[in-house]
């Protein structure tokens, strides 16, 4: 695919991924066929900052985990008052990374 388009994608969506994944994503997208551009553009990524806000407010109900698609962990948090409040606090620090991992998984899923 056109390098300009790829760089545009990286600029618009870079914040959704871990920094160390970005070069890989760029290389993978460069190899991509132009016909898949529309699909890549249409992917909906979760914003780590939004999820962090949700985690701060509704973390002990597991809402953050439900939102990023970790339903099992969400149920676990919901049924234990956010792991007696401890897991909820740990997740304030973990949730942004977890969101970015989910985003890259989504991208990989749609590319392969």
């Amino acid at each position, binding site marked *: 695919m056109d390098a300009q388009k790829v760089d545009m994608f990286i600029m618009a969506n870079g914040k959704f991924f871990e920094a160390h994944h970005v070069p890989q994503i760029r290389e993978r997208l460069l190899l991509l066929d132009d016909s898949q551009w529309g699909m890549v553009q249409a992917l909906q990524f979760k914003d780590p900052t939004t999820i962090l806000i949700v985690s701060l407010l509704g973390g002990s*109900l597991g809402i953050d985990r439900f939102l990023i698609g970790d339903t*099992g962990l969400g149920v676990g948090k*919901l*049924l*234990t*008052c956010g792991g*007696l*409040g401890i897991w909820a606090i740990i997740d304030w620090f973990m949730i942004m990374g977890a969101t970015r991992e989910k985003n890259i*998984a989504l991208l990989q899923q749609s590319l392969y």
Partner: protein
Amino acid sequence: MPRANSKIYLVLALACMGGYAWLYLNLSMPDAVSGSDVEMCPIKRLTGVPCPSCGSTRSVVSLLRGNVAEAVYWNPLGFVMVLGLFVSPIWMAYDYFKKEQTLLVFYEKTEAFLKKKNAAWAFALLILLNWIWNIIKHL
């Protein structure tokens, strides 16, 4: 090859250890950990309103002492917790020694089931009803 969700073994092991430690505290010195000074639930601490799973410690303790009716009154979720606390260590040990991933497969199946619309609504409704009951009970 490690699968994407294989960290749930770690999460579950930590949760079980935490759960048993908390249960031990509650059983060995019930006076020290009851009352509002050691309110563990952050929602109840902040707002004064109980969360959907408030009362489940009391429920588990009642259940272990044989008071089933009392356990249901405190929080029906206590039954789920007792089941989880008893079954998951055994299941994890089984997977570990047999070098299998049966628990992980079960977890992924449950997760997929809960993501279905009807199941999700039913689950949410049950939790919501339980929450309303908790608030009415003033746990």
